[in-house]
Each structure stands twice: as C-alpha cells, then as structure tokens.
C-alpha cells in the first residue's frame, strides 16, 4: 500500500466529516423548525381557508370573519411604501456612493448612522410617524401616513443594500467610462446603475417584505383593527394583514386561533407571491441585458 493511501490520513478525515456534519445540522435544524412551524400553522388554519375568508370582512363571529380589508390594505401599503422609499433610498445611496468621498470622516459618520438606523426598533418609527406625518403634516391616520412611516422604516435598509450593490460594480468600469470622457452622472446612470440593478432590486424586495410584516408602527399610527370596508384612497383609514392577525390572536374564542392561523397563511402566501414576482422581474431584466439591442 502506498504512502498516499487514505488510511494514513484517518484522523484528519474524521475531523472533516465531523465538521461537515455540524454544518449540515446548522442548516437543517432551522429549516426543520421553520417548516414545522409553518406546516403547523397552515394545518391549523385549513378549516377557515376559503373564498369567503379572502373576500369577507372582519366580524365578531369567527366563522364569518374575513380579511379583505387587510389584504387590500397591505398591498396598498406595500405599493405606496415602495413608491416613497425606493426613489429616495436609491437616490441617497447613489449620492453617498458615487458623489461623496468614501473615506472622509463625514462619510464614515453617515455610514455608521445609517447602519444604526436600520437596527432601531420599529415602534420608534411608529412614534416618529405619529408626530410627523399624522399630526405635524396633518395627514391623519391615513394610508399615506402609514406608508410614509413604513418608508422611513425601510429607508436605511434600502440605502444600505443599494450601496452594497453599487460597491459590487468594480471601479475598473468607472475608470473605463471616465477614460472615454464621460461625466460622473453619465457614468452612474449608464454604467453603474444598470450593473447594480439586480442588487438594488434585491434590496427593494427585502425592504418591501419587511414592511409587509410590520405591525407595531402601524398600530401607533392608528391603523384600524376592525374595518368593515376596503381602504379607498390615500387619505382613508386603513388596516393591514398583520394587524388583523394580531387582533384575532388576542381574542379568547378558540375559533379565532384558527382564523389567525388562516390569516398568517394568507400573509405568508402573499409575501411569497410578491417575492417571486420581484425575482421574476429581476430575472427578466438581467436576461434582457444579455442580448440588448
């Protein structure tokens, strides 16, 4: 048997196998737990999952409770939040990354602060939104105020992920464009942004997903927990899926537990659908780029 035979390396290979096992477990465990929880919830909510539930309105009787206002409200919130947060967030990130100095003290201070803002508990954003949008700007407890608050909430995330996406664009490309005689704006718009788009979209999806699941700030803003009509304008009162779910879980009647489970299921499905849609969109954009005219 030669000196290269594997048996001469038994100890090292055992450690290797052990390490792989640990890593596998680290991946498998949360997945199993997650799937278990989700599965359990879906099963629990099964009795209530029907068309009436999706098209009905909240009710004091769990058998008749529906979540249409919440569904519509959540979707409206998402769209508005995206419309507010994305342009501002991407714009800010572009300014900081492409036009600002990356190494000056101010730049570093800003960077630290944005990172911190991303970690601030969301209820504080609710309080800020209450004072600023609801009261000071006089928007009232409206969809717009809610969307504006959520936009503020996800803004740091959008800025951070957009900056990351911009950083993945190698400097050599900016150099190449500069050497061709392009101005900073021409470089940013025609070279950097197109390349960073997938990353920016990912960040947008992340932000939107987060906004969708937020409850506390909306409660502070004054979203309704019981709504018998569908929100019909940016200035209307509103509600959202998480709030309805929150409401159902705090009812004593065990039937509402089923309702809540069904609501959670709908929320999860909606989130998934949104994410999928955004990913498909991103895929289309990247494919179009490869064979561009």
């Amino acid at each position, binding site marked *: 048997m030669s000196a290269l035979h594997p048996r001469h390396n038994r100890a090292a290979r055992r450690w290797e196998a052990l390490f792989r096992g640990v890593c596998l477990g680290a991946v498998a465990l949360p997945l199993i737990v997650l799937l278990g929880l989700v599965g359990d919830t879906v099963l629990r909510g099964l009795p209530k999952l029907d068309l009436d539930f999706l098209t009905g309105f909240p009710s004091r009787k769990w058998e008749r409770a529906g979540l249409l206002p919440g569904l519509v409200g959540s979707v409206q919130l998402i769209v508005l939040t995206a419309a507010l947060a994305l342009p501002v967030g991407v714009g800010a990130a572009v300014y900081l990354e492409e036009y600002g*100095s*990356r*190494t*000056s003290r101010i730049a570093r201070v800003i960077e630290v602060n944005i990172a911190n803002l991303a970690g601030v508990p969301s209820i504080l954003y609710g309080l800020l939104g209450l004072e600023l949008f609801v009261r000071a700007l006089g928007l009232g407890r409206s969809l717009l105020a809610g969307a504006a608050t959520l936009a503020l909430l996800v803004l740091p995330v959008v800025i951070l992920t957009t900056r990351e996406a911009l950083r993945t664009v*190698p400097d*050599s*490309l900016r*150099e*190449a*464009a*500069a*050497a*061709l*005689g*392009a*101005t900073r704006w*021409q*470089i940013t718009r*025609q*070279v950097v942004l*197109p*390349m960073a788009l997938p990353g920016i979209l990912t960040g947008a999806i992340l932000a939107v997903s987060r906004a969708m699941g937020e409850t506390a700030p909306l409660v502070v803003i004054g979203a309704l927990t019981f709504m018998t009509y569908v929100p019909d304008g940016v200035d209307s009162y509103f509600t959202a899926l998480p709030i309805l779910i929150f409401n159902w879980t705090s009812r004593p009647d065990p039937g509402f537990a089923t309702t809540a489970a069904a609501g959670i299921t709908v929320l999860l499905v909606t989130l998934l659908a949104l994410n999928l849609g955004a990913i498909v969109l991103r895929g289309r954009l990247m494919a179009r*780029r*490869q*064979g*561009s*005219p």
Partner: protein
Amino acid sequence: MSASTPKLRAADVRAGFGDKEVLRGIHLDVAPQEVTAIIGPSGCGKSTFLRNLNRMHELVPGAWLRGSLQLDGVEIAGADVDPVLLRRRVGMVFQKPNPFPTMSIRDNVLAGLRLTGRTLGRADEELTLQRSLTQAALWDEVKDRLRDPAVGLSGGQQQRLCIARSLAVGPEVLLMDEPCSALDPIATARIEDLIHVLRESYTIVIVTHSMQQAARVSGRTAFFLMGELVEVDDTQSLFTRPRDKRTEDYITGRFG
C-alpha cells in the same frame, strides 16, 4: 529631434497623493505618431505619470499635480480645461481588460460615444463600429457575433475590444497602462503587432514592466526611477548603450 511641437510636453511635473510625492520634476516630450515607452521598477511613478496625461490622476481623493502639461502646445493641467473633454482626445487602455459586462460587443465599441451623449445616425454607427474594430484587428473575429455579450470573448480579444472602444471616440493620443500584463504571449504579440499599425495614425504612450516589450514596440524609451526621469533616448540606443549607470543596472537586471 525635430523642431516641431511635441504632441505632449511635460515640464517640471510634480504629482502625488496627500503628503506623498510620487513624481519629482519630470521633463518629457512625446513626439506625434510615435510610440514612447515608459519603463521602470514598481513604484517609480510611471503609471502616475501616464494617468496625469489624461487627468485621471485627479480622480483619486487627495491627488495633486503641479507643473505644466501641454497637448499640442496648449496647457491642459489647469482649471480652464475640462478633463472630460480632454479624455476624449487622449484615450486610455488599462492593464486588465474592462469591457462593460452588461453590454454586447457592439454596444461596448459604441459605448464611448453613447455615454457622452454623442449619438450618431444608424449608418454612421455601423461605420464607426466597423472602422474601430478593424483598427483594433478584431473585426474578422467578431463580425458575425456583434450582439453577443462582450464578456464571452477571450482575454486578448477583450483587450482589443477595449482598444476599439477607445478608438471609436476618435482620440489623437492613446495611453496604454501595461496593456499586455494580463495576457498570454500570443495575445501579447497580437497587440504589439496592433501597436505597430496604430502608430501611423496615433501618438502612443505605453507603460510596461517588460523591457523586451518596450524594446520591441517603441521608438523612444523613458526610464523612470523613484519619481525621476533618469534617461530618455531612442530605444535602440537606450537598450544597447545607456548613458546612465542606473539605466544600465536596471535593464541588465541588476536591480528592480
């Protein structure tokens, strides 16, 4: 040396980053329609000098430049010259080929014009495209796949694409910063052959760490050492009987 105006003239050029001085008083003339090579050990300032010729040096925070730089006898280092416009007359090719990955071959070549908002009619675009790719000795290899992504080309082809891209803008001077460093010997030979042809229409300044390459492609060679221009002479003389001992020691491989 003819009495006509040099294409580029550097007079007492000093440059650096922050409090670090990289170039200490460079005096160098670059003749038109000639290939001038700049050689020297790492850190001698040759790339910094090259990047000052199209004012790319100032894009780095903290970079500074003093002294005089002239293109066709006109000062280009001052605030009354728009560096963006200068770079359209003085193009640059980099060490690592950097075609725009999101664009096709076609779009890459035309990128210089489109980026700067100088759109041409369809016919003119096709003309420019073909002319630039032909000048870069790439036309025959890609004429049937112009819409394919640029990143699908080999390293040597990508570098020639970058050259075509630079040429499409219509510069008079082409700066090359170690253009063959990342390429294999055959791709390198193609580009050197290309330089021989381009010389007739453009003024070329090439920074290279390969002395053999400088000897092969250039008519005049300048030797930089620690921020100083030690010696500049026609290539034949510099490589057979250099006047300065430091040059002799460097090109025979006694240091560097």
